């Protein structure tokens, strides 16, 4: 393989003065599942629509399989799109909806029948081929939309919050189904969501977006373990962010020194730095541990599976700590000693406190 499936080079979008997407570059490999994750208004849809050819770019170029497609109209791009509201044609049956892209490509009737049949089987809707879209449940409509987007064997499939309109239970179910379908079909997929769970579960890589630009691109695990910015640390999972000063390969916070296993991420000696400590990585110090942090429990929230403690201590602001639920209850007001492993103290690299 010489080039990525999708190559986005400095693509940008402006609406008058307003910037919907700053110049953005991004590559997606063949068969990869890439998720655009970010809060509402961060430019995810804008980027996706430019890839699909439904929004004009204000700059940059888009390559598909090494071919420039920046100015190609949508109907010649061979890119399947699943829209958030599905955009199923209300006057056509499920079968005809799925057959639509094949009819546009003038496939023979027999070829068309078998391809539509296969696509509908794939999403387990073969028995509903004769129904009209409005006679289907939301989840079924979503699956028809997916079948329609892949039936013509597109180079690339784009999905814009495809589960956004469904309730939580159905969303969880369909998430797993999309994961399975991706594993089976090995299609290149660019997926948009604002739901971090969806992104973590589905993606090979996550492209985290914020304020019209890319914040970080990484595997889900790397994004969680080693976020680079304050925003990334806060958007994916829960976080404690603590400001300190680099001192001899460690971080000085007040009169405490915190060791980190990520020395390569530290700025120069004496510079300020922000470190991330995930709440579930904090532990009560045992008798054999060196207690690094002292504090007092000021609030306890029992969530069943886990228990969330707010701890006020010598680390300036309060800390959040999560421990497994059950067992011995934790009293508000009790003094605690905490410890944290050096590999769980993660300095942010693009952040000046």
């Amino acid at each position, binding site marked *: 393989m010489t080039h990525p499936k999708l190559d986005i080079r400095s693509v940008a979008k402006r609406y008058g003065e307003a910037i919907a997407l700053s110049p953005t570059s991004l590559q997606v490999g063949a068969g990869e599942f890439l998720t655009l994750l970010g809060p509402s208004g961060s430019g995810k849809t804008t980027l996706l629509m430019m890839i*699909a*050819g*439904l929004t004009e770019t204000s700059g940059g170029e888009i390559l598909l399989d090494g071919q420039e497609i920046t100015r190609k*109209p*949508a*109907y*010649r*791009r*061979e*890119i*399947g*799109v699943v*829209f958030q*509201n599905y*955009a199923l*044609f*209300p*006057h*056509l049956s499920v079968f005809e909806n799925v057959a*639509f*892209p094949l*009819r*546009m*490509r003038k496939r023979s009737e027999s070829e068309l029948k078998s391809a539509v049949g296969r696509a509908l089987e794939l999403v387990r809707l073969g028995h509903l081929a004769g129904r009209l879209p409005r006679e289907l449940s939301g989840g079924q409509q979503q699956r028809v939309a997916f079948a*329609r*987007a892949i039936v*013509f064997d597109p180079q690339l499939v784009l999905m814009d919050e495809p589960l956004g309109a469904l309730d939580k239970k159905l969303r969880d179910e369909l998430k797993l189904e999309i994961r399975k379908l991706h594993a089976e079909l090995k299609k290149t997929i660019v997926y948009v969501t604002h739901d971090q769970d969806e992104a973590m579960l589905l993606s090979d890589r996550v492209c985290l977006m914020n304020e019209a630009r890319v914040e970080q691109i990484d595997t889900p695990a790397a994004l969680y373990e080693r976020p680079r910015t304050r925003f990334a640390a806060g958007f994916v999972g829960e976080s404690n962010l603590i400001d300190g000063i680099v001192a001899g390969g460690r971080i000085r916070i007040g009169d405490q020194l915190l060791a980190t296993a990520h020395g390569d991420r530290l700025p120069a000696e004496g510079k300020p730095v922000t470190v991330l400590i995930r709440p579930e990585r904090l532990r009560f110090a045992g008798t054999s541990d060196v207690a690094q942090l002292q504090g007092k429990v000021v609030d306890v929230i029992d969530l069943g599976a886990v228990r969330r403690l707010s701890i006020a201590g010598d680390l300036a602001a309060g800390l959040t700590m999560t421990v497994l639920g059950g067992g011995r209850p934790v009293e508000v007001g009790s003094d605690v000693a905490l410890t944290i492993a050096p590999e769980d103290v993660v300095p942010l690299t693009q952040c000046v406190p």
Partner: protein
Amino acid sequence: MTHPGRHLLLFAPAALLLGLFFVAPIGGFLVQGFLHRDGALTLEHAGRMWAAGTYVQVMVTTVKISLWVTVLSVLVGYPVAYVLANADPRRKSTWALFVLLPFWSSFLVRTFAWIVILGRQGPVNAALVSAGLSDQPLDLLYGWAAVVIGMTNVLVPFAILTMVGVMERIDRGLMVAAGTLGARPVQAFFRVYLPLSMPGVTASALLIFITALGFFMAPALLGSARETMITQLVIQQVMELVNWPFAAILCLLLLATALVLFVLFDKAVGLSTLSGEAGRSASAGSGMGRRICGTLGELAAWLAETLRLSPPRPGEGGVGTKGLAILAILFLIVPLLLLLPVSFSRQEFLSWPPAGVDLRWYREAFSSPVWLDAAGRSFIVALLTTAVCLVVAVPAALAFQRLQGGGASAAFAAMIAPLLVPRMVIAVALFYVYARLGLVGTVAGLVIGHAVIALPYVFIAVTAVLKTYDRRLDQAAASLGASPLVTARRVTLPLIAGGIVSASLFAFVISLDELNIALFASGGLQSTLPKLMWDEATLRFSPLLAAVSTLVLLVMSALVLLAARLRPAS
């Protein structure tokens, strides 16, 4: 808290008006068609009419002309409706204005305009002769084409407004989706948009056809004897021959045609489309229809490719569509503008280009007791009509709002029934009872007739206003300590007042332009403005009439603009 009976009481004024002056007269009049002189039932009138042959011939002509007008109106209206439905909000209001102004401008005046345009001394002939395309002026007027063009011109705005309602409900995202699935814009249009807009097309075709069946102004003023339509025969039977049974049978024929069409339409698409709701089933999208649309789509796509037309962006109209829409709008507006120079003419007769600029015809109109008298009467009648409509429609709309299911549909159907019956039938039937009640030639008779005709429009407008009103505001006011009366005065009324005034302006405009009722009920003496204009025009169209028409247009446009401004955004 509220008893259902109280709601029904609110319908009482409407029931009274429609019962006494719509249902009863029409029933009493129509039954004449089957009554012998001694009161026994008979088919002899119908038999004699059938034998005469000419009546059947006129019915056939009427249907033929109406069909042509229907097809043309839908074709001309479609691009405008498309652009209007898909324009961004700011441009949309401009487009809407260009449709609403002709929609509300006088039928009579617009028919007059074609007398000027197509006349031997008109601009079309002048252009043809000066361009050397013809040695002498052609007889464009008084023929089949003139009638069809004149009627189409009047009815296109109806077609547009009916189609827009359906088109606005089509999800624009579908066209975008079609694009990502490989459909060229033209293909997407024919495969997706057109089938989805079909309920609007059929609904407007139905309305246009039924309205066209009842036309008499255009065939009388623009056509020859060969283009005689059925309503003209009705007038003749009543006014000249005083043959009530024949008039009744002709009206029945008209009504029966309309009714059959309604039933067929309801079976196929569902009547709810008429009020702008999406059809029950998008039947046009299945089987034959879809295949035809699909083939057309591929053909058009191929043509566009071959001609290297740049594809419009999905959802919006391309240059071609906008061009067609602008042409259609010009077709609606320009005839009216041509009246202006004629009204400033110094000559006694029509000629193109008009000679000189002079206000003599305006002076004449303003100094003529006959015209001033008719204008004064028209204004009084319009004012009273508006008052009656409000008194009847507002309570009915309030009650309607609280009805649900079958009751609501029945009430709605009853309230808009006068809209579905040709005005001529209402007018003749009222004349039939007015003669017995001594209401012929009275202002009261005119007001009642106009109120029956305007009531559906006012009811629909008031209902729409109430729909935009959030009833929780009343509840909020109550919870804050306001009594029902105070709530009505300080919260409800201030919020809906604009909409109500707007609705009443429409009643005023309808009354101001109403000719059918006055044709019979004015008794020749108590003439209204449209009646006087009609009488003058059937003799000769003069620059004086152009001047009066211009004034009427100005007043009506001002009222409509005011009404549009007062209407709540929805």
